[in-house]
């Protein structure tokens, strides 16, 4: 039951001809050639595939593309052109929040989602905010420092 699906991908109107049950992650990676969202588990456990759909952070590996119809999808490829991204990037670099990097694009999306909700988060709020994103390398604390730093440095941006 392949059909036409229209959505906004990174601020651009696109039209896809796909099965509405195809995972958004596969659509992004295979049909749109956007490889920044990663598949770490395919079961909604790791958050490496995190994207925004109408401003809400979702695991694109569990999200059928049909549900994104007529909605706004923002991936790391769209987010990385923003000022907020730059502030987060600098903070992640400075805090040493990246090792192997496989969790990192998803972690950036989670950090953005968190800062949208809580522009000045407390430590515990950050822990909760990124608790859907697994990182096996860093032990998380340097990521938490990074988000803290970004919230200070980007004061007023969120």
């Amino acid at each position: 039951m392949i059909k036409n699906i229209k959505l906004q991908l990174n601020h651009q109107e696109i039209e896809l001809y796909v099965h509405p049950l195809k995972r958004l992650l596969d659509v992004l990676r295979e049909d749109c050639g956007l490889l920044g969202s990663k598949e770490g588990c395919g079961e909604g456990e790791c958050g490496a595939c995190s994207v925004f759909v109408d401003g809400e952070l979702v695991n694109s590996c569990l999200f059928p593309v049909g549900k994104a119809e007529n909605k706004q999808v923002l991936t790391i490829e769209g987010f990385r052109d923003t000022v907020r991204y730059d502030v987060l990037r600098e903070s992640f670099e400075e805090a040493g929040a990246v090792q192997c990097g496989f969790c990192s694009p998803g972690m950036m999306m989670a950090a953005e989602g968190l800062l949208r909700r809580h522009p000045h988060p407390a430590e515990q709020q950050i822990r909760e905010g990124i608790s859907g994103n697994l990182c096996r390398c860093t032990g998380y604390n340097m990521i938490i420092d990074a988000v803290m730093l970004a919230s200070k440095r980007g004061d007023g941006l969120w």
Partner: protein
Amino acid sequence: MKTDISAPVKRDDVADKLAGLTCYIGDMRNEDMLYAKTLRSKEARAKIASIEYPVMPEGYFIVGKNDIPGRNRVKLLLEDWPFFAEDVVNYIGEPIALIVGSDKAVIQELIAATKVIYQKLEPILSIDDSGLLPIYGETNSFADYSFGKGDIDKVKRIAKYIYEGTYETGYQEQFYLEPQGVIAEFKEGKATIYGSLQCPYYIKNAVIDCLGISSDRVRIVQATTGGAFGGKEDYPSLLAGQAACAALKANKPVCLLLERNEDIECTTKRHPSRIRLTSYVDEGFKLIGLEADIVIDAGAYAGLSGVVLQRAMFAAAGVYNVENLRVHGKAIATNKVVSGAFRGFGSPQAFFAIEMHMEHAAKEMGVDPMEFKLQNVVKKWDKSTTGGIFRDKNLLPEMVQRVTEMSGFAEKKQTSKKPRNDNKRRGIGLSMFLHGCGFTGNGERDHIKAHVKLAKNSRDEVEILISNVEMGQGINTTMKKIAANALEIPIERVIFINPDTDRVPDSGPTVASRTIVVVGRLVYEAAIELKEKWQVGAVQEAECSYQYPEGYEWDNDSLSGDAYTNYSWGVNAVEVELDTLTFESKIIGVWAVFDIGKSIDDRIVKGQIDGGIVQGLGYASMEVMENQQGRFKQRSSTDYIIPTAMDIPIIQSELMCQPYSGGPFGAKGLGELTLVGSPIAYALAIEDAIDAGINSIPVRPELLMEVMADDKKY
């Protein structure tokens, strides 16, 4: 430029990683690439009577044991592990064949439609199963070693206290965030394999054997690797061989990527262990003798079990000086997934046993555990378990002092004893440990023989040519720092590219906490040589090969001498709060001091410390993986739980360093050390909270219930 080598510099891999621009193996695209999926055994042990495949559509292929032009054995220590099962299968998940084609969904259907007819055999499911047909040799063990020193029989007669205990540790899954994968292609008679991997030359050798072709016709290129932790030391050799055979048969590039749950269920894990210790102590509370019997569950094939076992055995006495010692170890074959490398490599198991043992022995004798331990700690010029010499000053007593201050240990020990009027109890524990850096025994000298090269171009940029890989641990930064510092040039003029065996010499695998201490040293020496002959604008090279340091000795037959040339040290404290109704526990604080000789980059070092400690805490607490009838109960990312940001407190860590003259700038190994101590400190903290002995990890609520119901406390 000559700078403070420890001062953090910017990692130049980070911007692309954050932006999603880094190309991992799953991001590589090739027009006519085919995909492969694995047909796997559903039985723990069986003869394959027959396999009924559906008709393959045009462009789809079956690749199995008969498609291997060379030898159907993965080249590791022993020669028993097939790329594809032959007549028998030995574990659930063992690869039987690949099905290859352009559409993954079609491949899945073809696999589902394939019928394997098994004749079941009685599987060996535990290290205690006996009387069954051996999987390997006559005794069913892949390795069986003994060594000792002094006179243990005499000690048995004169000891005032004798204390015995048995300690068990479970499986642990590496859970690198990026699942395993390789892409193989064949062009003009040459196989090229791209992959997420730690050891390019291990794979090259395995593929040479598998295809039966000459060395110049196999090339391995590392793709940026999304975490490994030992899990990509052995298994990628198997995947690479399989994919290479598929590419040969299909005459197209073939991509073999594992899915997460397939990776959890079928690839190597940390060895479960059972360690029995008997210690002999004199009236002055000196540890005068120790007997250790170590059994590790190796799974269906030998893999790296022999060397994992050796590392565990050499660590049997922990950080303690014991003059009379007898150690026996066995790696037993079972019809389960092959156990393999995981950060620490046998050492976390052995340290858990000895640290818990020392604590329990002290409590039994009625002395303070910390005093008892410190009294028996090795000192400079003491001998190691294998009779090697500790040549450098050991800072452990100062490190313990510092960790107790940082954590408020004494005070917390007191409060944990005070009754509370809620159902919470607190506890704190402290561990002391070391890690021998570099390969065990004669590995570096006789097997690896590392070789490095620096190549300077006419723009006076210097490329580091080594076979060690960046996998998150930061070596593309630390190696560049070492070279830049020695050459006295800006780091921007040093180049490090993911290794390609057609370009880099064999500097050995990225394992055993050897990259900085061994390979980094060679890079340093080559840089010094290059600096001396430096000619502006000239194309120049400098090379350096590993030399076994003078004054060290190792005998591999008797397992005696210097098992390692240098040791890193650590002290960890962990505080927990336990709910006595639910038996759930929460980690309240973690404090750590490490001696790594010299930090090559403080920020990268902290990343290793935090990451290793958290993996260790997972190992001791929530990372439960049980095997039932040959099948893992926790075989998906939903069931196998690793720590999230919610499970971890702030980790306070410091360095206290005794430089090693054989390492670059005095640096020793770091990566594995960081995982060894936190599981122990966690278990001791729980023990402190419940005032009863813990003898196994992971410490699950069910285990605690049992322990607390038991009258015998330690």
